[in-house]
């Protein structure tokens, strides 16, 4: 007799500076929606999404609890409380704004300090606005390499690469 599938709930954090598309990526993934209007997040928005089952895995059902954090300007105890218990983070960058590639601004070190074992996935978002998708900014690839994180390119607007990115995250969480 087959054992019932286990559902694992894993918390992940969306990190990135303002207006890189963190909320848009989660909304695209969870609700399949995209809204051009920019509404800044304050505090944290939490989304739940069951990932498609991964054949051959012990835990076939993986539920993501996505913590979509507001742009962090100052690292406060409240922010560290948000970080706690995360199994992974998606670090989002705006490919059209190289200024967003600075991870100091998003307190990635503090996140890793709170969650030393957490996995990271880097997302270069807004790829629909890039003239040439085949030559992404090299500094971003170097940055992802230095954190041993996979780098995926996404467009919350068109949906390109979004499912792939969350699938890569799922693999990372079940590793």
């Amino acid at each position, binding site marked *: 007799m087959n054992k019932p599938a286990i559902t694992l709930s894993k918390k992940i954090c969306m990190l990135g500076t303002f207006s890189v598309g963190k909320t848009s990526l989660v909304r695209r993934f969870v609700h399949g929606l995209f809204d051009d209007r920019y509404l*800044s997040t*304050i*505090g*944290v928005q*939490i989304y739940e999404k069951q990932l498609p089952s991964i054949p051959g895995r012990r835990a076939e059902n993986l*539920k993501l609890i996505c913590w979509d954090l507001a742009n962090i300007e100052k690292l406060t105890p409240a922010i560290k409380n948000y970080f706690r*218990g995360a199994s992974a983070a998606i670090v989002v960058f705006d490919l059209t704004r190289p200024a967003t590639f600075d991870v100091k601004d998003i307190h990635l070190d503090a996140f890793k300090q709170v969650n030393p074992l957490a996995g990271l996935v880097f997302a270069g978002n807004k790829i629909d606005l890039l003239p*040439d998708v085949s030559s992404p900014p090299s500094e971003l690839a170097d940055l992802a390499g230095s954190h041993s994180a996979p780098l995926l390119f996404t467009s919350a607007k068109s949906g390109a690469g979004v499912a792939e990115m969350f699938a890569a995250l799922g693999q990372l969480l079940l590793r």
Partner: protein
Amino acid sequence: MPGRYLKQILKAHRTAYAVFDESLQSLDYDFRNSVFFSEKELGRNFSLWECFPLLAGYEDVVREILQGKLRQYLLEKINHCDDAGKLTYHTILLTAVQDKDYGATRLFCLVSDVTRETALEQSLRQKDYEVRVLRADLLSNGQFLHDSLLGESQPVAKVREFVKKVSQYQATVLLQGESGTGKSLVAKLIHRASPLSSAPFVEINCAAIPDTLMESELFGYEKGAFTNALSSKKGLIEEADKGSLFLDEIGELPLSLQAKLLTFLETQRFRRLGSTIERKANVRLLVASNKELAAAVEQKEFRQDLFFRLNVVTAVLPPLRELGEDILLLAGHFVELLAIDLKKQVTGLTPSLAQKLLSYDWPGNVRELRNALERAVIFCEGKLLDIDDLSLSSIRPVAESGLGNVQIPEDGLAFDDVERAFLEEALNKAGGNQTRAARYLDLSLDTFRYRLKKFKVRPGHPPNKK
């Protein structure tokens, strides 16, 4: 369990609560004071994790609280969006209390609605971010003061200095210069750098509006003022009240309206069409013309009194050919923007194209440069724009424009006719602008006018090129 008074206090503070035993099963709860749980379908008994799925990952925290190692844990500004899209903000507090009756530890979860306090903060932050995003957009589009006036050359530095100085005063500014030299951009920058920057900037091109509509556009009209005036309408002067009004191509303003504009400038008062009521508007006027207004006055095409009133602070914007290496700076900037807009891989120019751009005389100035580059970026297949990508038919290097192979017919020619033909051709090429026409022939404006008079060429009516 919370007593009656405590429940009243929680209600007053819009706080819902749930109590859990050490195995994290519910003992008591009241969710009526919060919309946070409004859509939750929980049975009579439920676990902490069913009630708060968002706490996945906080198992250690909960254990530490129950063991007394952690006094409390606060999660602030948790967003909650209901099915109708209404956003509320909540604070979740986890803490432990000793239940003396049972000698056991209970986990208290308090959920407070902080929407009122947080919505204001969100609204302020939204505005702040919108400003930052817009500013970043402006910078990347090269529209902001310093970055807009790209260039290191002396003429550009002078224009920058001019903008900086005049923006601090209310004086009328007259901008002159060839077509495509950026008069409209400079006007916008003067407004933006001025204390009026948050007030309206209203722009109208006098050459683009038919004479018959111009008056109603500028001064507005009352219902019934003319056929189809079904309702009253503010004019641009009223729209620009307390801000700046930019009249481009002011030289094309009909003479009849020039008098009315002058009256407004003198008194700051005007009447809408069909109205007897005098209105007041406080407007800073910026005007531009690619025509030589002084010459237009001489030709009786522009009122002298209005010219004197407008000619308070004047700048002549430099043509592109006088900007030297700045042409390449501008070209690089346009290529960068166009590559993004057109989704191309182009990153710059080849040295031979750069040389070509420097040797061309750019009669259409920056506008012509941008358009030529747009065409080139569209057709470019590589990473660098080359001469072949440019529409070369229109490119005529200055160095190659001499008349090295002039031939005189066997039966000779009248030199006066040749000179007249050159004057007419120059005027035609300059669209009637005498300053530009004189420059085409390397003559001073005075000499050019003298020759026009001598050969009885009417500058206001250049013959069409045959």
